[in-house]
């Protein structure tokens, strides 16, 4: 990976841009980033997910697969507290989600980068402003952060589109911008819902490399995807666990993946 080294930046993105690729991952026995203990989620009287017991350790890499409508997006929403479990104990960074107020959830979200399938943006802001939004919200939009932003936009191939408005972007550009926004604050966990669905093979590999680098720095990564080639490409580079949602339960997928 061709990363900028010794660029003098001090922001969170500079950390991974300037990091040593051989940086050892965080110890797997550290406290889990996200912990499910017999979690269930029901809506309108029907159970969507049941009996989920799972820990996402710092530095872990997970793929989430399953047929359309199986509950992948619901599972991801539970992971960033957009939904609250109807049963069981769900903890983010060791804090039970059930007792959190909205501000508590907001502060946790600053530690979790999320890439939505539909890539929502603020259409009145430029691409650069959208990507920098987590920094703006966290009050971290200083000079170093702006330099990080430029490097990150260049890395995802949007340097020339920094002043464009989101409606002017193609589907692939929107996904790249969404991924850049999710990682700009170098969060502890990154959750991505089909992040490479609209990009070509080269760009998907580039985005995967970005996620792998963040993972090597100890960030937990979870990618919901149908793209088996992406999973295979990742598994050749990182010890990834593949989860499959079937029959409303999350299972570890077989070795065929």
């Amino acid at each position, binding site marked *: 990976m061709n990363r900028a080294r010794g660029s003098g930046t001090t922001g969170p993105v500079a950390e991974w841009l300037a990091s040593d690729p051989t940086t050892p991952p965080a110890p797997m026995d550290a406290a889990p980033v996200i912990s499910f203990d017999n979690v269930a989620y029901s809506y309108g009287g029907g159970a969507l997910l049941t009996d989920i017991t799972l820990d996402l350790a710092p530095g872990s890499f997970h793929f989430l697969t399953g047929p359309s409508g199986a509950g992948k997006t619901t599972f991801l929403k539970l992971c960033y507290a957009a939904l609250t479990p109807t049963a069981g104990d769900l903890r983010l960074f060791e804090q039970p989600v059930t007792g959190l107020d909205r*501000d508590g959830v*907001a*502060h946790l979200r600053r530690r979790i980068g999320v890439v939505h399938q539909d890539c929502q943006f*603020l259409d*009145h802001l430029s691409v650069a402003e959208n990507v920098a939004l987590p920094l*703006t*919200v966290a009050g971290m939009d200083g000079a170093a952060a702006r330099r990080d932003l430029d490097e990150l936009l260049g890395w995802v191939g949007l340097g020339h589109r920094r002043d464009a408005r989101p409606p002017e972007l193609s589907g692939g550009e929107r996904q790249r911008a969404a991924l850049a926004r999710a990682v700009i604050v170098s969060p502890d966990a990154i959750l991505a819902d089909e992040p490479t669905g609209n990009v070509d093979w080269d760009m998907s590999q580039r985005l995967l490399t970005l996620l792998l680098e963040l993972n090597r720095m100890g960030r937990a990564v979870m990618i919901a995807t149908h793209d088996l080639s992406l999973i295979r490409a990742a598994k050749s580079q990182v010890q990834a666990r593949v989860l499959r949602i079937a029959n409303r339960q999350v299972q570890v997928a077989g070795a065929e993946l």
Partner: protein
Amino acid sequence: MTGGVARILRAVRGDAASDRVVPPTGFTVRLTLFTAAAMAFLAVFALALSLAAGRLADRWGDELARGATLRISAPADQMDRQVGAALRVLETTPGVTDVRALSEAEQRELLAPWFGPDLPLDRLPIPQLIAFSETAEGYDPDGLRLRLQAEVPGAVLDDHRRWRRPLVAAATGLRILGWSALALIFGALAAMVTLAANAALAANAQVIAVLRLVGATDDYIAGAFVRRFTLRALCGAAAGAAIGLAAVALMPDTGDAAGVLTGIGFRGWHWLWPLAVPALAALTALLATRAAARRVLGSLA
């Protein structure tokens, strides 16, 4: 500084970057500006009415409060004796001071508005008036009436209370009406700002969803809306108050002789009062938008 005040100051101060996260909205801008301007214009008039009514009530109260009149109707040959007796009674009554029989010229001046300046007082059976004031301790009107009845049978005591009370009550009522109108004006402004803020928040549900996704707290999101509406209310109210002040300044002033309607205006330091109207409008908008934002953000959670 208390946490609440610090939070309000932080909400008002804000920063340019966080303000930009909320897209500019067309119709709510014009609605808020116009409403704030109109309400501030009316508030200046209500304020002027209240202050004018207050001045009038104070003046009527001061002028009539301590004055009283003794009217002596007696045959011409007994007039001097009864006036002398009345003066003696008054001068020896506790709580009475400045006792003085009105001169012929003064009585003529009092009657001039009704009968003209050439009234032949010496040929008409005009009662003699004795004016006096009461001290701060006051006097006993019932006791004085009894003494006068015994010693000056032609004397009638008029202590002005029966004139003063309804006038002061009317002026006080007007003053209360003015302050009530002010309260209603700011209440209406709060309602309009709440409506506009609700509309703006509802129109920006997706913006709020994105902001929450990236970790924005309710304070952060509400702050962007609150600052926008507060500034609009401040600007609109400043314009409305300026127009209202100009209109009040241009109203004819008939001086002390004026009644409440022709006396509407500001005197002395009272001209500073209208300067508080834009600040109050901004504070009203701040509180109204903050409450609306809290409610809408709660419902969107």
